[in-house]
Structures are given as C-alpha cells and as structure tokens.
C-alpha cells in the first residue's frame, strides 16, 4: 500500500534512519554530559561517545579521527573552510578558485571575501555541469591558496573528477576544499585516494539528524589549518569553539556507520529505480535530462519538461509527491535556478525543470506512481499551454516578440 505523501526530495534533506535515532536517544536523557567536562563520569561518557562517532565518521571517508572538526552543518563547514583558509594563508596569497554551480554557502562566502580583498575566479561549466580541467590549471597562479569545488552538484547531480582536480591543484601548490554534502554517504569518498585537503559534509543528507556536520581538515601531507571563525572555548583543536552537540554527533556517527555498510547496495538499488524514472519520463516528447548522464549521483535526476512551467507542474501532484523545481516562480526576482542557467539552459527550460531525488526509503511502487502522475500532469499542463500549442503548430517561439514584463 502506498502511503502519502511520497518523499522524493532527499537532496533537500533525508528522513532519519530509525537506527540513528535509537543511538541518539540515550544521549539526551541518561548520558547528557558535556564532552568537555573532563572530571566526572557524565563528561567522560559524552567524550567517549564523541570519540566513537569520530571514528565512525573518519572511517567513512578514510581519514583519522583527529581530522574531523564538528560543525553545525555544511554551510558552516563551507564558511569555516574558505574563510579559515583565507585568513590562515593570507601571507601566501589571496586567490581562490571556485565554480559557478557551487552552493550559495560557497559562492556567497567567496563574494564576502571578495569585498575583503580576495581575488576569486569563478569557473564556468559545460552543458552537463562539467568544468574544464585545462581551464582550472590555467587559472591557478602563485597567489592561489584554495580551489573550492563540490564533489557532486546538488541540483543536477554531476560528479566532479575530484582526484584529477586535486592533482592539478597540488601540482600548483594550492589546497583543495570540496563540499561533499550531496556525495558523502552516497558514493565512495576516500580523502587519501582523492587527494582532498578539506571537506565539508552534513548528517541530515545521509539519514542523520539536522544541525550537525563535519569539516575534514588534513593533518599530514600537508598539515592544513584553518583560522577559527568563532571565538570561544577552543574546542575542536581550536578551529571551532562551542559545546559539542553530543546526541547529534552520536547520530551522525551512526549514520556514517550505516552508510559505510549499506552505501553500495543503496546506490545500486536506487540507481536502478532512478533509471526507471528517467527512462519513463525522458520518453515523453520534449523532455530533457539536465546534468551528466554518465557521471552523476545514483539517486538523483533532473529533467526539464519543455513548454510547461515547473511550479505549475508540481502543483498537479504535490499534495502526494514531494519533489523540487528549478523554477523560482515564488522568488521575488522570478529568476530560475542559477545552476541550470550556468549549464546554459535557456530560462524557459530552467523554469520547466523538476528534480527527483530518491533515498534509502524510496520504493519501486513510489517510483511507478510518480511516473504515472508526472506523465499525466505534463499532458494536462501541455493541453493548457499556449507554448505547446504553438510548438505543435510549428511556430518557432524564438521568433515571437514577447512583451517583457
């Protein structure tokens, strides 16, 4: 039996795995101590729990426990990494390279630093969301201190070749920071294999609790340090002050442990379901895949249904199915997704896009129902669309002089 509403917006956040919650509960009630209380059992228990979580998290990405700095989530991790490196390595240079399709937590942090005197290079992407590695190499100067490129994109799922990016970055003496919010726990990440120096990720995108994340900061080859962005008790090796969110951290650890064990099976199952969804929806006339079909996250697909508007389309089924759209009809600027625009999509196609993101608890039945409902809605809205009618009559829409408004 299908239960409604169906959740296919796992890139926004995931539900918690019940096993994660079970692990967390005791740390709210019985073992509520402050992990920094060094002289009584309450503190020791909390510290032990945090240590265990650190191990679980470190194992998932193949680093050591000491390289994990707990944060409130990936936005904080992005800020701490970029601002922290900018401050710490100011004597070496002031140039940072990033990509136009990064999350706002990276882009706006870079814009903030620009005002303080940083030089930022924003690399463009091709129509599938890939960067040009030669362009990256040519952009690195002797003033470049950091290259900030996400592991996988949150809107279209394109996975960047982080290992190659790291090689280029290191060859030129800069550090590599990657925002792995969407990738961690979904696909294999190994900071040694990949050559990552700093990496932000968060629990709530991998079936853990909201409000807790981590920044991986490399300690060897090279030893990397970031300047703290918040003053206080000097927790987390002086890089991030603040009492640790022990239950959250315990949950994060458990989520990483589960991911470690189940990630491959999840990815295999979900990519099959995603491919089924893809195949069915892309068989509709004038529907287009956004992103890199051959190098993308297994659980996600982003499709534009030309001649229908995304929000209007969603409305046909959003009482029953939760997805997200690149249309920004509700935003004051009426600007559609900047990520899709960076891929070179016209505004019309960007307005027409839907992102479906599956998760551990998605079922084939849900996917089948979604295919049926979305197909029905696309047909219904096209019957209502003047653009569809014009297209069917063979009118070239680009020849029409639209009254801009």
């Amino acid at each position, binding site marked *: 039996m299908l239960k409604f509403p169906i959740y296919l917006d796992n890139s926004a956040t995931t539900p918690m795995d019940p096993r994660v919650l079970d692990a967390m509960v005791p740390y709210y009630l019985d073992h509520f101590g402050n992990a920094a209380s060094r002289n009584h059992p309450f503190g020791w228990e909390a510290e032990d729990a945090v240590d265990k979580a650190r191990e679980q998290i470190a194992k998932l990405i193949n680093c050591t426990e000491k390289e994990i700095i707990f944060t409130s989530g990936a936005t904080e991790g992005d800020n701490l990494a970029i601002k922290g490196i900018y401050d710490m390595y100011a004597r070496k240079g002031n140039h940072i390279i990033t990509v136009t399709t990064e999350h706002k937590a990276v882009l706006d942090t870079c814009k903030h630093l620009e005002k303080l005197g940083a030089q930022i290079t924003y690399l463009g992407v091709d129509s599938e969301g890939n960067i040009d590695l030669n362009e990256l190499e040519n952009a690195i100067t002797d003033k470049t201190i950091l290259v900030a490129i996400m592991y996988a994109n949150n809107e279209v799922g394109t996975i960047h070749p982080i290992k190659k990016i790291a090689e280029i970055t290191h060859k030129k003496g800069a550090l590599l920071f990657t925002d792995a919010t969407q990738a961690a726990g979904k696909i294999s990440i190994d900071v040694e294999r990949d050559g990552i120096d700093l990496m932000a990720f968060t629990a709530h995108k991998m079936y853990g609790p909201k409000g807790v994340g981590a920044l991986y900061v490399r300690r060897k080859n090279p030893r990397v340090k970031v300047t703290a962005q918040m003053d206080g008790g000097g927790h987390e090796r002086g890089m991030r002050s603040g009492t640790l969110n022990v239950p959250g951290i315990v949950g994060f650890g458990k989520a990483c442990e589960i991911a470690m064990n189940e990630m491959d099976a999840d990815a295999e199952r979900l990519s099959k379901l995603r491919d089924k969804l893809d195949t069915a929806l892309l068989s509709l006339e004038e529907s287009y895949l956004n992103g890199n079909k051959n190098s993308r996250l297994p659980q996600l697909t982003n499709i534009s249904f030309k*001649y*229908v*508007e995304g*929000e*209007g389309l969603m*409305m*046909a089924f959003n009482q029953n199915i939760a997805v997200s759209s690149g*249309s*920004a*009809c*509700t*935003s*004051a600027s*009426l600007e*559609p997704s900047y990520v899709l625009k960076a891929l070179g999509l*016209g*505004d*019309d196609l960007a*307005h027409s896009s839907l992102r479906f993101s599956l998760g551990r608890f998605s079922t084939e039945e849900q996917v089948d129902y979604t295919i049926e409902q979305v197909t029905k809605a696309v047909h219904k809205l096209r*019957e*209502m*669309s*003047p*653009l*569809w*009618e014009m297209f069917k009559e063979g009118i070239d*829409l680009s020849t029409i002089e*639209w*009254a*801009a*408004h």
Partner: protein
Amino acid sequence: MAYSKKVLDHYEHPQNVGTLDNKKKEVGTGLVGAPECGDVMRLQIEVDPETQMIIDAKFKTFGCGSAIASSSLATEWLKGKSIDEALTIDNMDIVEELALPPVKIHCSVLAEDAIKAAIQDYRKKNNMPELVLEEKIVH
C-alpha cells in the same frame, strides 16, 4: 506556501481552456508574458458585433498554479460582459477573489494585461479606435 482553496479549484478544474479561431473577425487575442519569465498567458474573446458583448472566452497559460487560476477566473468573468465593462476588471479584484499572496500578484496583473490585449486586438480587427491604456508597473 500553501495555495488557497480557490486557486486549487481553478487549477484542478480550469474553466474555458482552449482556442478560439483567431481568423474570425469577432475574436480578439491577447498574448502576454514571456517564456523566460516563466509565464505566458493567451486569452481570447469572441464578441457579438451587434451588442459588443463577450459571448465566449478561452485561455491557455504556461505558468504556475496562480497564473493558471488567474486566467481561468478571468475567462469566467469576461463572459457576458460588454467589451467596455470588461476593461474595468482590475487585477486586485483577481487577487482578492483568489486570495493570492504578494509574490503572486504579478499573475493577476498578467491576467488584466491579457484581457486588455484581447480587447485591443478585437478593436483593431474591427477598425475601432485603439484604447490608450495606463501601464501597471508591478513586475
């Protein structure tokens, strides 16, 4: 953001979706908006040349639920009005009727623009003097 019941009603059961024969002299067509902006509305009226009454109205809209609801409502209101009466339909009447939130006011403006454009088109086709319309700068 949740939609109002009236927007949902119009969205689920849109009134007067369709196309009138634009070759007919009695039919006026208004096409407003732009695909880049995420909404395009086409509103058509058929006018009785004797009485100048709107005897039929149809729409097709590319846009969000509120844009679809605004155009559906506009066609309902147009039928049975004279082309002069139809000019008095104000976008704020649509906002009120559909309980549109502030971010969706542009949908109602688009509907008002579409009504006026359709009437203008009808007048032009029938050699009536062009209307001078004041611009609503809301976008």
